[in-house]
């Protein structure tokens, strides 16, 4: 049984959100589903939908966001893979039982995020996401 049910989104870190949104909408025609600032994460971001998943373009708004370090060291590009789960706590417990730590964070809108270190996921910053019911 798979621990996650689908790809939720792929996050791409960019220097300027509006420029990147223009590029991706003009190049591929994906519709924008949500756009705005997320103060809890120190980012501004936009979701572009494709099929049942989306691309999240995000611009860090200060040096606290780890995306800033990524931009400085590697430049723009793919930052994170997010997989949807029904029950984040259950998934985190299952992974913990297998020796993999998941750091869990709840957002004000009810979204729950869990992060698996790239050390455990072959260089991939892996996010598990549980949407509000």
């Amino acid at each position, binding site marked *: *049984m*798979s*621990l*996650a*049910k*689908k*790809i939720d989104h*792929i996050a*791409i870190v*960019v220097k300027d959100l509006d420029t*990147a949104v223009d*590029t*991706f909408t*003009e*190049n*591929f*025609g*994906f519709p924008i589903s949500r756009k705005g600032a997320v103060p809890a994460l120190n980012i501004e971001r936009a979701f572009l939908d*494709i*099929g*049942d*998943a989306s*691309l999240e*373009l995000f611009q860090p708004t200060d040096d606290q966001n780890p995306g800033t370090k990524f931009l400085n060291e*590697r*430049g*723009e*590009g*793919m*930052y*994170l*893979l997010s*997989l*949807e789960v029904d029950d984040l706590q259950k998934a985190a417990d299952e*992974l913990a039982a*297998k020796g*993999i730590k998941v750091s869990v964070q709840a957002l004000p809108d009810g979204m729950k995020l869990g992060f698996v270190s*790239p050390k*455990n*996921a*072959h*260089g*991939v910053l892996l996010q598990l996401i549980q949407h509000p019911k």
Partner: protein
Amino acid sequence: MLKKIHHVGIVVRSLEEAYRFYRDTLGLPVHKEATVEDQGVRAALLTIGNSEIELLEPINESGGVAKFLEKRGEGLHHICFETDDIAAELEQTKQKGIAVIDQKPRVGLAGMICFLHPKANHGVLIEYAQP
């Protein structure tokens, strides 16, 4: 028209080691595994929802995947969008002036495929596939 994310490509040192996490720990079934000589990789597709995760292990030192691994280490490599008509999609892409790597679709693990240049898409390597 681009319909969905066909797969997300991840470069790894060893397919066998990566299976321990992606197949065994996350429980994603391996749907296909093959050597793609012209890309210099052994690759596997693991099913997640109606998309896949593609693991790529270099089999020589000269391919693009080997160079990526040497320069940046393991990690996220590309995003592949699925289309019903890759020839038309690629033609339209070129007409928009978007830089591409492949001038024509070619055979890959996901079917007929082509890659666009990452400089055209904010550092993201994009692939199209027609399964």
